[in-house]
């Protein structure tokens, strides 16, 4: 690398290398992130012999630096000389896989998994497998937890042709077994969470003879945190086994998990219920999972009920078609009915977010008879979140029974939410307004909801007013310009004469939002005169918003209106007393290319500085 011209080209790299040890973490981090540049400059040989040994010992650094290092090393194969030398990356990653910080270890394991793919089968056996064994029998739990994540990737690739394959596999299973019965719960947790993945790469016979006992042991561990992770492993294992073995090998354990003493384990079962359902197939679902699901829905812990309530729709959807309706009607629906009047708001709101989905599964008659009463109860729930969740999913019901059935109860619920004391609740209901309008139709909307939408425009919270203007735009998109002209525009424009300047500004914001969807005619005929008139408002905030508004609606207007009406007003605003008004007027003028340069210069009313300003912006903008 050295040479006559060395100084210049070496300098930036020398800085990078020196900054690997800078006091400032940020500089070290930057340097680590450019590790590939350093390696490239050093060449493959020196990277292997000097850089990597140095990195192997720098595990005392801050987490973020180590994290970046662990990530970099995952894509370092080319820089150490290609797949042939990829094993040189193992020592630094091995030391990173033993640090105490979980994110760093996980990243190191991820990189190890990545580079394991680049090892030849022989290298894998000579270098990688011993590393996994070393980690698995390390003194500290950190290295043993890291080992758990590596079994799954290295064994499938140890070639079947090599005579040691069988023995390698057996030792792997043996090591994994040791990890599953480790003294520390941390390692057992890691083993528990990787068991499913390891099972996937083993042959079925090994799964049956070796993995199942491990799974059973972990699922009855004394630590709740180990047992709950075993649930997930159980799901993966169940997916691997043929139907006839499920009943004997995994179902007893899974049944036990669904009735575990610890609510956290039951929560996990509820949370993974749809995966479980998929893995065990329709027969076991019918016989086992349905009662288990009923129990979870009736669980004494609200967290578990919440998790189960979230799964109601997916569970019902994936029930075998032939018996779906009967199962729902006789087993699930009674539990759902109870949940509707649950004492816990989270349970109810979880249910409200999925319950509407049942109507498509059950069809019109059942929906009207059984579900509709539940919807109505939830629409009157004391917690706004429950009501909101029902309203946000109205489209499902609309498809099945039409919304008319609900509209009588819907209206009071909407009105109440619209007037809720918490502005976040009001904001949430505004966001569903366009959806509701679409479902309920224009007539119903005009009659019942229009006044609400207008009331939001004068809400005392800005976020609500802003959302309300946006809502108007979406409504016009739905109902068309003519509807807008008849219902919304007059009311919006009427606010221009309000005594409160905030309301007058709302008019401008509405015009900003509506001009495009309303089209040229309405904008020119109805809106523009109002805007122009407001340019003489007493309040400067209104005046500069006029300027901004004019800029915004400019593209919608035709050029004659621009020249004849907008131009003089903006010119006048550009001479306003107020700095901000001036600024926005000039901005509007330059933004719209309203005038060509000469006219502008001869205009007497402009001061020198604004001309300069104009020049400046003009020269920049094209």
């Amino acid at each position, binding site marked *: 690398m050295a040479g006559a011209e*060395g*100084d210049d080209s070496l300098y930036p*790299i020398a*800085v990078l290398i020196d900054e690997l*040890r800078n006091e400032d973490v940020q500089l070290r981090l930057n340097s680590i992130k450019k590790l590939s540049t350093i390696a490239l400059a*050093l060449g493959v040989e020196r990277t292997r012999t000097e850089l990597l040994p140095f990195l192997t010992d720098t595990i005392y650094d801050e987490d973020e630096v180590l994290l970046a290092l662990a990530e970099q090393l995952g894509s370092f194969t080319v820089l150490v000389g290609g797949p042939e030398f990829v094993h040189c990356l193992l020592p630094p990653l091995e030391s990173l896989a033993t640090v105490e910080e*979980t994110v760093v270890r996980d990243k190191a394991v991820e990189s190890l998994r990545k580079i394991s793919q680049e090892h030849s089968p022989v290298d894998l056996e000579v270098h990688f497998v011993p590393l996994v064994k070393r980690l698995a029998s390390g003194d500290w739990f950190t290295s043993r937890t890291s080992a758990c994540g590596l079994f799954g990737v290295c064994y499938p690739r140890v070639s079947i042709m090599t005579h040691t394959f069988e023995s390698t596999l057996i030792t792997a299973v043996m090591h994994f077994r040791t990890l599953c019965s480790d003294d520390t719960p941390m390692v057992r947790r890691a083993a528990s969470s990787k068991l499913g993945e390891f099972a996937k790469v083993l042959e079925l016979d090994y799964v049956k003879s070796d993995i199942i006992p491990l799974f059973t042991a972990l699922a009855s561990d004394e630590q*709740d945190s180990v047992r709950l992770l075993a649930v997930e492993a159980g799901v993966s294992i169940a997916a691997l086994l043929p139907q006839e073995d499920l009943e004997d090998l995994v179902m007893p354990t899974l049944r036990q998990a669904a009735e575990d003493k610890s609510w956290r384990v039951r929560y996990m079962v509820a949370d993974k219920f749809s995966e479980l359902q998929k893995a065990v197939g329709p027969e076991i679902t019918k016989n086992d999972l349905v009662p288990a699901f009923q129990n979870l829905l009736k669980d004494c812990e609200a967290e578990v009920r919440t998790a189960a309530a979230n799964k109601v729709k997916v569970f019902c959807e994936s029930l075998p078609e032939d018996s779906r309706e009967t199962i729902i009607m006789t087993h699930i629906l009674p539990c759902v009915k109870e949940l509707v009047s649950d004492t816990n708001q989270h349970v109810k709101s979880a249910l409200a977010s999925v319950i509407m989905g049942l109507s498509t599964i059950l069809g019109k008659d059942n929906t009207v008879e059984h579900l509709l009463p539940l919807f109505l109860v939830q629409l009157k729930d004391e917690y706004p979140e429950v009501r909101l969740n029902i309203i946000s999913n109205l489209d499902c019901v609309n498809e099945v029974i039409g919304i008319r059935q609900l509209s009588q109860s819907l209206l009071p619920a909407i009105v109440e939410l619209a007037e809720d004391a918490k502005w976040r609740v009001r904001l949430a209901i505004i966001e569903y307004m366009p959806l509701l309008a679409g479902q309920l139709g224009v007539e119903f909307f005009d009659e019942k909801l229009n006044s609400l939408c207008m009331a939001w425009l004068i809400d005392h919270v800005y976020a609500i007013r802003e959302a309300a203007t946006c809502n108007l735009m979406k409504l016009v998109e739905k109902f068309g310009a003519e509807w807008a002209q008849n219902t919304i525009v007059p009311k919006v424009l009427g606010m221009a004469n309000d005594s409160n300047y905030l309301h007058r500004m709302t008019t401008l914001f509405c015009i900003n939002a509506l001009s495009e969807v309303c089209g040229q005619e309405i904008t020119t005929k109805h809106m523009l005169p109002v805007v122009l008139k407001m340019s003489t408002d007493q309040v400067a905030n209104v005046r500069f918003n006029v300027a901004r508004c004019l800029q915004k609606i400019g593209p919608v207007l035709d050029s004659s209106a621009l020249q004849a009406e907008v131009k003089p007003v903006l010119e006048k605003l550009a001479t306003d007393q107020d700095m901000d008004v001036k600024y926005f007027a000039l901005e509007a003028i330059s933004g719209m290319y309203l005038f060509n340069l000469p006219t502008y210069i001869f205009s007497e009313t402009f001061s020198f500085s604004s001309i300069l300003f104009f020049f400046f912006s003009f020269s920049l903008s094209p």
Partner: protein
Amino acid sequence: YSFVLFCLCSVPLCLRPMQVFTKTKSEIYLFFNLVCDPADVISTVEFNQTGEFLATGDKGGRVVIFQREPQGEYNVYSTFQSHEPEFDYLKSLEIEEKINKIRWLPPHNPAHFLLSTNDKTVKLWKVSEKDKRAEGYNLRDEEGRLKDLSTITTLQVPVLRPMDLLVEASPRRVFANAHAYHINSISVNSDCETYLSADDLRINLWHLNITDRSFNIVDLKPENMEDLSEVITVAEFHPHHCHLLAFSSSTGTTRLCDMRARALCDQHAKLFEEAVDPSRRSFFSEIVSSVSDVKFSHSGRYLLTRDYLTVKVWDLNMENKPVETYQVHDYLQTKLCSLYESDCIFDKFECTWNGTDSVIMTGAYNNYFRMFDRASLRDVTLEASREVCKRRAVLQPRRVCVGKKRKETDVSVDSLDFRKKILHTAWHPKENIIAIAASNNLYIFQDRLTPNGHHNMPEIQSAPPK
């Protein structure tokens, strides 16, 4: 005959930065121990899981860690400032830096981890050793001077060279903003990934890797603070069962909660409470029954509780009365009035088990501490003070008498010094080594070795019959 303790070392913990030692005032108290800086008063003592390390926290927010040398003595390993005084501007409250509790985490890797807490914030510290240093810069020489750029013709990768051992303490996590009241306990769960922190009214559950969220598992706060009838005094996890936790209250009860049953543990699984004889009720009954410390035995079967006058051992299977009750300083019964006036009655004494759960230790006044052998029911009072704790000197039992002195060495109740109190004690998890914090002094005592090098069975020399 012997639980004969001799003084292993006694360390005045005036571990201020070195330069302070040169100041006259500090020197005075270093040598004569006359004036004690309040910041140096030790507020917690805790051995780690192996007993190789001992940590103390003080009122000045410092943590001092001692390491046991191969010869058996404990020497300072690391000192760091864990908490600083703060001011809560929202509530206009000063937050003291005093370390309320320290708890060691089970060993992860060569470094050591501990949790320390003041009234509001729990911190996770890593104490690690560094014995290598990188050398060789490209652009500077070893003295840090910039090199002439024209001399740089090759790139140099730094090399690691051995150096003197450096012990560093670095804050790994800060668990803040979860407590409205003062934190009185922290306890690491046996799953090694969660811990609890308890304040006067609530207990929160944390994940050791997550600092921005904690779960409230116990909440005693009534709707109306005027209905407040009890506060949480201590909370601790069971040593083996990850789902069990015990917490005690100012009303003298200790509750056992099962975290498996519910996410919120407001309803207890068991309530340990002894009925008080109504005839013995007095104004002070409730105050002295307030539980100041709770410790699970190492076996996990028993609970040790300390109230003002007694230590009690409870079997987890029997809620209505303790299996053993030991009087710590029964002679104070008649002095409660003056103790109330001096606020001493609110002192929070800690208690501790020995490694095999056969002996119990707790502190008392006048720099005395008490030990109770559960099998022989013998007890002993010992004193930890600069005068008696000469190096390698054997501790002599003390006796407090209520009436006339019967022996020369007896001490009358009236001459007890109530300002000298031993609140914090710790017992080595495996050996008969104890650590006693008395004001700003830390005393470490060890059971005398028998000639063959083994420790004696912990048998307490009996106190003379009354």
